[in-house]
């Protein structure tokens, strides 16, 4: 392999990776260290630390990354050498994440979402924050250039021009491997921000925070009436767990900002762990507006989106997941943001998407025999560009999908529904939070809705040309 102008990760990487370990070792042995007399345990730990340090250093030396013919290539490995190639045109998104320890050193991890790849595959840890930002901009600019089919990437890239099929590889001359892309032509525009007061109040009004309060009060009051206070020790893990969930929710929503940049919608958030993710609006599949019961009176809502290839990023930290675009906001802000996102996706070139235009109708009264409580909160409808459904009393969710993004359609009918002449209509979307479904409609209406949606979604997607991404692997 010819020499390429490669780059290395930040030299602080080994320190940041083992930061907590170092602290632990020092904490366990500092007294012995001061005495100048290490016990056998101390020596063992010190030995481990040195071996780890050597390993980390070698790993750092061996890890190189560079861009070559539309691929990001990463060589790693101390014992087993690995060479990864990440196709830039397959990148779904590039996120910058700063775990707490890395943040102390000013480092950041670059996470690349590759269609069908695991998270571990598309990660570079750690870079300095500036390098991470530069590389991210560069990758996104390069991806857009490749996708646009232009054989020459933006001139600011500084590398020689490789063809889309990799014909003209880098000649490896004086051209620097990575030069930041030209500053984006349009300035970043702030769309929404979650201020501290709102975040705090809304976090306190979640079921988790309220049950935390109830449990705490209950067990705080209990010892006053019962002599045996053994129950308190049982409560502690429960309290701890709940508190952790609440704190994580708060931390993940801290400093939440949403901005429109040249590369897409940029979402930044985090208290301990900073993350910045860019959502390509061209891959937007739909949005969900959630209005939990406790927030509804106050006029607050939350906005989640479904992005193709982002998979169903689950809410594993108890905080906003990768699909959350606004953890809490006034309904008008949420609506405006949803509006902005839906209008920015390419299907809406011709028509202006208007959320309020969509008239939602409830299911017929006889639906109460199947969904006695839920019926009153169900509604569904379509507008020129959107198909919308709403359901839920405790957490009211409004699911919105553009006609052009409908994957497949289904009508289902259970035995009880058949007796009543009712049926559900489902709109299938890629994995994600968005699920439009019109439940318990009259059978005739359901079939009519299905047929109409088939026609409308066909027309909505007709003018679009196929992306090569989808077309190239043509069935087995």
């Amino acid at each position: 392999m010819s020499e390429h102008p490669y780059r290395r990760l930040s030299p602080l990487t080994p320190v940041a990776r083992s930061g907590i370990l170092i602290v632990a070792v020092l904490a366990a042995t500092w007294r012995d260290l001061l005495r100048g007399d290490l016990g056998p345990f101390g020596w063992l730990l010190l030995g481990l630390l040195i071996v780890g340090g050597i390993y980390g250093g070698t790993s750092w030396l061996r890890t190189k990354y560079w861009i070559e013919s539309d691929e990001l290539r990463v060589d790693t490995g101390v014992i087993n050498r690995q060479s990864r190639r990440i196709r830039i045109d397959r990148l779904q998104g590039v996120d910058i994440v700063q775990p707490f320890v890395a943040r102390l050193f000013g480092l950041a991890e670059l996470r690349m979402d590759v269609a069908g790849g695991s998270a571990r595959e598309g990660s570079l840890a750690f870079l300095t924050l500036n390098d991470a930002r530069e590389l991210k901009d560069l990758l996104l600019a390069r991806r857009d250039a490749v996708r646009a089919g232009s054989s020459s990437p933006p001139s600011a890239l500084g590398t020689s021009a490789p063809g889309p099929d990799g014909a003209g590889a880098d000649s490896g001359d004086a051209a620097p491997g990575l030069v930041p892309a030209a500053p984006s032509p349009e300035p970043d525009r702030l769309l929404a921000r979650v201020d501290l007061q709102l975040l705090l109040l809304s976090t306190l009004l979640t079921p988790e925070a309220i049950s935390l309060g109830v449990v705490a009060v209950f067990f705080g009051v209990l010892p006053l009436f019962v002599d045996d206070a053994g129950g308190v020790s049982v409560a502690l893990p429960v309290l701890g767990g709940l508190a952790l969930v609440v704190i994580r929710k708060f931390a993940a929503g801290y400093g939440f900002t949403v901005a429109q940049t040249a590369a897409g919608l940029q979402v930044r958030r985090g208290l301990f762990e900073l993350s910045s993710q860019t959502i390509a609006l061209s891959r937007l599949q739909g949005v969900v507006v959630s209005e939990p019961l406790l927030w509804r009176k106050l006029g607050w809502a939350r906005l989640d989106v479904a992005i193709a290839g982002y998979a169903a990023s689950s809410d594993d930290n108890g905080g906003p997941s990768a699909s959350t675009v606004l953890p809490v906001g006034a309904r008008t802000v949420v609506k405006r943001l949803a509006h902005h996102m839906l209008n920015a996706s390419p299907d809406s070139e011709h028509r202006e998407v208007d959320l309020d235009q969509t008239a939602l109708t409830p299911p017929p009264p006889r639906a109460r025999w199947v969904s006695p409580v839920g019926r009153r909160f169900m509604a569904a409808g379509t507008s020129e560009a959107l198909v919308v459904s709403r359901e839920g009393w405790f957490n009211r969710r409004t699911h919105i999908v553009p006609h052009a993004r409908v994957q497949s359609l289904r009508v289902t009918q259970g035995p009880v529904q058949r007796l009543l002449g009712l049926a559900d209509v489902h709109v299938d979307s890629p994995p994600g939070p968005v699920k439009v479904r019109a439940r318990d409609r009259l059978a005739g209406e359901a079939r009519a809705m299905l047929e109409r949606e088939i026609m409308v979604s066909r027309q909505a997607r007709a003018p679009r040309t196929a992306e090569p991404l989808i077309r190239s692997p043509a069935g087995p």
Partner: protein
Amino acid sequence: MNDLFAPPGDDWRPVSPQLCKMRRVVLLTTTGILLIAVIVIFLVFDLPGWLMGLSLGAVLAFAVLAWAMIGRSSRAWGYAERDEDLYIKHGAMFRELIVVPYGRMQFVDINSGPIERAYGIASVHLHTASPGTSARIPGLPADEAARLRDRLTSLGEAQAAGL
């Protein structure tokens, strides 16, 4: 009466009657094994005879019910190829009608296990980007399955739409 699941065009294409036959044979086999197992257990542990009769009766009743259900559900399967989408309906108790636009197809699978092969049938499974799309047609004659797959693949390519 059932407009909801009316065919989109002329008529639903049914699946092969071999599907029904295969499922019933599988049912008979498992029922037989179950009956023998019940008898053996009762003889080994020397349990009262009336209880054995009751258990055998329950197994048999269940088998008769399943026999009827298999007939209904096999007849309920149907599909129709339109110009731009594939319609599939199935289910006797819980009914479902699925419409998949060819342009949304990601890939098509054919599956045929050893028992299915013995009956000369296969199932075709359409995948879109959505996991909710449960577009599966079981019990197609093998050559019809291959024809359908080829047709779906070519139509899918011709009408492919971006995500």
